[in-house]
């Protein structure tokens, strides 16, 4: 199965980007193009999920999956935090910030997993994209709760008020776009979607290739430029996703999800955020070192998940069934 994955153009473009950055090529994707692709991808998966839910209707599974997703995002940072402090040797502020990343999710890992699983006949349910949106932000709150009291208030700077933080968390651009496109998909339905389908459906995998090329470059550059990674942190950046993936897989199977959906729940649990959470942490815990959390989530966990993780978590689910 790993071989399957490794001959898929999507993964190969990621490897190409990663390789180009490692040999210090000057290949680079303009920032605006990268952002444009991520907006396109989020709109496309949101729409697709919404249409599928409009077709299939709400179900008990959906409710269970939502609960599971919320719970995972909220609780996974807790063991992560203690591992990061004890085993990783991080200061509490840094550990809290990193933990929030591992509770939250990576949209690109989700999309890549969806493509790979669908290619193997394990298509996840349409509502899983909504579950992903749900999982983006609880981990941020959870990470900040872990830091409560640990963080000396800086003189002269008023503490971020909780309502302000909650607002930031729920009005986060990617959450709004995912949820908004999901609702548009539900309202428009299959017929309403038909006219816009050529862009959002047909072009999807090709754009994903180019976006993963970009992510490969970004991940490898982050890895090269990071000076904050110690061996324990590298180990944790692989062990935590495997551990979280296993918990996600077990939970998915336990609540009776179909194999594809359970696998994608595992992928979501295993993946670590590198867009929404870093931005939130930068603002809420500026003392935490972005060099640590970006290197771990983007430099190690993300490539690990794309190349090996997805296949591993799918295998876990199939062994548990």
């Amino acid at each position: 199965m790993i071989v399957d994955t490794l001959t898929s153009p999507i993964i190969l473009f990621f490897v190409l980007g990663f390789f180009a950055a490692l040999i210090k090529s000057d290949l680079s994707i303009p920032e605006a193009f990268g952002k444009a692709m991520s907006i396109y991808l989020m709109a496309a998966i949101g729409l697709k999920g919404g249409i599928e839910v409009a077709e299939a209707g709400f179900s008990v599974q959906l409710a269970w999956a939502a609960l599971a997703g919320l719970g995972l995002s909220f609780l996974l940072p807790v063991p992560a935090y203690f591992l990061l402090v004890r085993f990783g040797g991080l200061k509490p502020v840094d550990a809290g910030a990193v933990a929030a990343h591992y509770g939250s999710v990576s949209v690109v890992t989700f999309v890549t997993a969806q493509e790979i699983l669908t290619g193997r006949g394990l298509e996840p349910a349409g509502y899983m994209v909504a579950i992903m949106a749900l999982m983006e932000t609880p981990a941020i709150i959870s990470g900040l709760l872990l830091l409560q009291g640990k963080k000396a208030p800086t003189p002269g700077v008023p503490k971020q008020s909780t309502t302000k933080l909650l607002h930031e968390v729920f009005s986060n651009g990617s959450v709004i776009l995912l949820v908004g496109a999901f609702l548009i998909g539900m309202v428009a339905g299959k017929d309403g979607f038909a006219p816009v389908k050529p862009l959002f459906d047909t072009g999807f995998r090709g754009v994903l290739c180019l976006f993963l090329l970009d992510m490969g470059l970004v991940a490898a550059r982050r890895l090269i430029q990071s000076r904050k990674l110690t061996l324990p942190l590298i180990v944790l950046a692989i062990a935590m996703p495997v551990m979280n993936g296993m918990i996600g897989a077990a939970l998915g199977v336990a609540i009776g999800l179909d194999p594809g959906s359970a696998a994608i729940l595992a992928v979501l649990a295993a993946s670590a955020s590198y867009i929404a959470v870093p931005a939130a942490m930068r603002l809420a815990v500026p003392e935490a070192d972005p060099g640590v959390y970006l290197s771990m989530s983007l430099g190690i966990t993300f490539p690990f998940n794309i190349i090996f993780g997805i296949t591993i978590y799918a295998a876990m689910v199939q062994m548990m069934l």
Partner: protein
Amino acid sequence: MVDTVIRKRIEIVIDTPLIPIIINMIKAVDISGWSVIHVDSGGGRDGEWQHDDVTGAAAKSILLAIASDEKAQALVDRIEPILETHRLLLTVGNVQVIRGDKF
């Protein structure tokens, strides 16, 4: 010839996500405005970085504000405690402006 007066030119190299914190301070000390300049890349104690990165969490900008001596001093006093934790680079220079009363 036009009359000019001396004002302070405050320049802060700052992580883009932290800009709102400083803007709040600028408003608090009643400085009349600010401009955010686009920084493409850079390097420092923490290594080098480029702007073209999807996360945006590591992007940097330069905040520029022109202000009177007094307001500049008030801003510097507010920023000083977070200079290290927030990894800011703050410089203050002298410039001549016309109609200095608006700063």
